[in-house]
Structure formats: C-alpha cells, structure tokens
C-alpha cells in the first residue's frame, strides 16, 4: 500500500509538471517543469528497458513514450526559438 501510494504521488507530481509546462505563462517555469518531465520520461524509458520483470513485447511497447517526449522537446524548442 505504501509503495502504491508512493508511485501514485510520483504520478500526480508528473501530471502537475505536465499541466504547468503546457499552461504556465512564464517561460522559465515552462522550461523548468518541461525539463523535469523530460527527465522523468527518459528515466521511465530506461528503467522499463532495463527491467527483468517485463516481457519483450511490453518493452517494445514502451518506446511509445518517445511520442510525448519528442512533442515536449519540440514544444519547448519552439518557445525558446
């Protein structure tokens, strides 16, 4: 139960980062939360690929994370262009 609460809290923090990155008006806040989100997505992808608990099919499916990751990178790049 404690573990699931911990994972849910990490998930909620990630969602908050996503909302702030897309809706904040200050560029610096967008950059900070966006960067945190990018780190979280990359970390998640690496952990999924390294995990011995997941089957190869699930590992292949996790590459789908690249879609929101690249869209976020593009969004932040566009802001600072």
């Amino acid at each position, binding site marked *: 139960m404690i573990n699931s609460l911990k994972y*849910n809290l990490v998930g909620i923090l990630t969602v908050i980062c996503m909302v702030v990155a897309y809706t904040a008006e200050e560029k610096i806040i967008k950059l900070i939360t966006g960067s945190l989100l990018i780190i979280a997505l990359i970390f998640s992808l690496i952990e999924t690929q390294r995990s011995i608990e997941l089957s190869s099919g699930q590992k292949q499916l996790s590459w789908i994370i690249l879609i929101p990751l690249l869209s976020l990178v593009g969004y932040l790049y566009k802001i600072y262009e």
Partner: protein
Amino acid sequence: MKEFKYSNEKAKKVMKTQMITKIPLILIASFAGLYIANSKNNMIFSNKLVLSLTLLICLIAVSIGLFLGIKNGTKMLLQNIYKVTETSIERVTPSGKSINIAFNTIDNHKIHKKGLLISAKKKNILIPIELDEYNVLSTLILKQIK
C-alpha cells in the same frame, strides 16, 4: 525440483487490485489532459456536445486501457515461476531471465505483508503471498534456511 506458479484466478485477482489502485491516477491524468486541451481556446468546456463526446471517448479509452492492463498483467504474472531444488531457489521472470539464490548464500529473510522476502548478495526474491501453495513454498524455504 518443485515448481510454484500463480493460478489463473489469483493472478487475475492480483492484477484487478493493482489496476483499481491506479484508477485515481488515471482519472487525474485524464482531467489534466482535458484541462490542457481546454486551456488554449476554451473549446471543450464551453460546448456541451464537444464536452460530452470528449468525456465519452476518455471513458472508453480508460476502460479499454484497464481491460488490456488486467489481461496483459495477468499473462505476465502467470509467466513467473518459482523453482525450488535442495540447494537453491530460482525465480524465472516474464523476460525469460532468472534470479537464482543458493540457500547457503542467503543473508537475510523477512516475512512481509506481501510475502516472504529472501535477500542474498545484490539479489532479492519476494515470494508473493498470492502464489499458489505459498505456505508449502515458504515452509520449504524456511526449513532449508535453518
């Protein structure tokens, strides 16, 4: 050598419980997505038809996600196999890799709420309480450790 696995019913029950604990997070993420989509031009919340259609699509997507999550998770749990020999315990994971701990290398063991945790050098194996014949397996291991 003896093998222990999850039964189909227990694996399904475990996955259902895990998915239920994830529902609040999924709902929060869905509403956050709606909020982001609406933040640009207030298109979703100002139009009742668009709002109801969006909510319906979200509900269908979440339901399909939960259903597939339970199905794939159950399949994954069923691929976990615990093999006990006279000298060691081996856990075969869904990826096909296995963790092997010899009984004479076990540093620590603890009975948790979730099951029996065996620790050796840089290796851990948790024997989940939901496993079929958990009592037989844990007794066998504890006897070997002593």
